[in-house]
């Protein structure tokens, strides 16, 4: 029973870290229509930034300032936000697909840096001993698991509520106006580029946060965590759950992660060891097909888009 709860907590915790990434992606795609194909890079940079800030000092490596976890998380958001700012300045004014190609390249380069800049990132071995929240309780697996789940859940909820509020605010309305009818928005004097850039940076920062949260939960990171596979998973989650919809982002994350974990378990249980790598490839085929099929059949995802005008509308519309 304890095993089940422990596993459940673990599963849900990881799923929610993906949910945070999805929420960030939703700001970029669902709200602003920017196609970021390098999600893994932004998540990775957040993870590494946080790791460098919070790990204890290591003679082999630069960084390791031993700062508190919360500083690490804020640093992660700053690093990812800065990267998003640079990428956004370069590409948002250009064609939509140039942004896609550029972000694809960013992820490749981020992973390459993680691999090659050994003095900074520990190279292929990555960074270990990343402080875990309630780390001193790690022996008691169930309590540790539930407490961590609690932290991640609270963080996810915080990001979700923050974004929902942002959506219904004047800022969110302008963003939506720009997405739906840019000419009209421009005629109203709104600087479309500035709004898009802000949205891109906010989304990127949230992805960085997700990377940090994940890093501190697992305790170690390596370049092979931040590969295109991560980007595909997150996109599948957003497309399946409902792009443009924060609830959909969270739902998609949990759902797709559940299918992923279940199929992985199935493969390791049923498939003989020699064939497991091949079976894993089939898992990925499944994700790719899910993306294609959803785009064809229900591009709005399971939950579709929630059209909101203002958080005041419901109050004012006579719900006395």
């Amino acid at each position, binding site marked *: 029973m304890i095993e089940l709860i422990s596993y459940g907590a673990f599963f849900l915790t990881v799923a929610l870290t993906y949910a945070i990434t999805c929420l960030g992606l939703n700001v970029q795609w669902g709200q602003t229509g920017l196609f970021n194909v390098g999600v893994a890079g932004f998540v990775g940079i957040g993870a590494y930034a946080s790791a460098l800030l919070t790990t204890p000092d290591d003679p082999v490596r630069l960084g390791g300032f031993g700062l508190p976890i919360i500083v690490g998380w804020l640093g992660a958001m700053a690093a990812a936000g800065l990267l998003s700012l640079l990428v956004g300045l370069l590409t948002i004014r250009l064609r939509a697909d140039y942004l*896609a190609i550029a972000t694809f390249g960013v992820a*490749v380069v981020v992973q390459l840096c993680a691999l090659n800049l050994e003095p900074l990132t520990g190279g292929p071995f990555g960074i270990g001993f990343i402080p875990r929240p309630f780390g001193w309780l790690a022996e008691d697996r169930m309590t540790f698991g539930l407490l961590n789940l609690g932290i991640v859940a609270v963080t996810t909820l915080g990001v979700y509520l923050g974004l929902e509020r942002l959506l219904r605010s004047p800022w969110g309305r302008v963003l939506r106006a720009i997405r739906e009818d840019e000419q009209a928005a421009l005629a109203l004097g709104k600087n479309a580029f500035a709004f898009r850039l802000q949205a891109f940076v906010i989304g990127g920062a949230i992805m960085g946060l997700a990377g940090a949260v994940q890093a501190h939960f697992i305790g170690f990171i390596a370049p092979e965590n931040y590969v295109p596979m991560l980007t595909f998973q997150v996109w599948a989650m957003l497309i399946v759950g409902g792009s443009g919809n924060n609830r959909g982002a969270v739902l998609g994350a949990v759902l797709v992660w559940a299918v992923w974990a279940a199929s992985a378990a199935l493969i390791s249980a049923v498939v003989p060891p020699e064939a497991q790598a091949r079976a894993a490839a089939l898992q990925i085929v499944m994700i790719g097909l899910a993306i294609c099929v959803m785009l064809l059949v229900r591009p709005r995802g399971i939950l579709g888009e929630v059209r909101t005008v203002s958080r005041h509308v419901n109050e004012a519309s006579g719900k006395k």
Partner: protein
Amino acid sequence: MILQALMNGLIAGTMIGLGAIGITLTYSILRFANFAHGELISWGAYAALGVSSALATAYAPLATPIGPFSFGWSLPIGLLASMVLTGLLALLVDVLLFGRLRARKSAVIILVMAGFGAALTLRSLLEFLVTSKPAYFTNALQIAVKLAPGLRATPDQLLSLAVSAILVLAVHLLLSHTAIGRAMRAVSENQQLAALAGVDVRQTIRIVWLLGAALAAVAGVMAGLLVQIRPHMGHDLLLPLFAAAILGGIGSVPGAMLGGLIVGLTEALAVQFIGAEWRAAVAFVILVAVLLLRPQGLFGRPA
């Protein structure tokens, strides 16, 4: 030393260029960046391998190396078969996916996403079918020929260069001097007007897919012959392909080849002077430079 690096870069560059031509054609005529193009390169290589191996097994003399080259007739035949098969694969993906999204007037970005999903599916499917172990067209060893002091090339490599040059010329002539080439350029500029002028747009699109896929298959066979065949080979080329196509200017065939050569040469020089581990970053740096300095590329027109 540097001369050899340049030769390596030239050869890599022509492969990138062939792939980039396919990308630039589909990009300019179908109006979207096709992330699945890399997979056509990989499938092209494996299709050629499959046909070539089957032929060699069925009739051993086909495997005997021709002249100074490392491969027998089974390979060129396999290549031709692969060009057709890869073309059919591209058409299949268009019919199932891109075509349907186009019919629905989906936004460009949806097409790009679909390409991304298709790439993932195709790559992993390939990996499932053939595993990720590297494969080779031939086990025959090649003696490099000395061309100049410090410069050697194998007959296979020289043949690749020649084939690439011929193909680029052929595609350029196709676009500039034939009816189908005019049709492609017309569709690329204004699809609706092309239809009014009598161009069968759907047929033209089909031909673009076939042509792009055929070139990808050639690039795949070259890369497989000169380096190795792996399911991820196309995906690894994707960033250099896009960089080359954008550098050359979307829609320009000579531009795509020139872009490919520049990317290939720069990569080779970077490997020489900075280290092989940073090779993958070169294409990105070139891409950023182009987007910053001249987004329309060398031969493109300013937006």
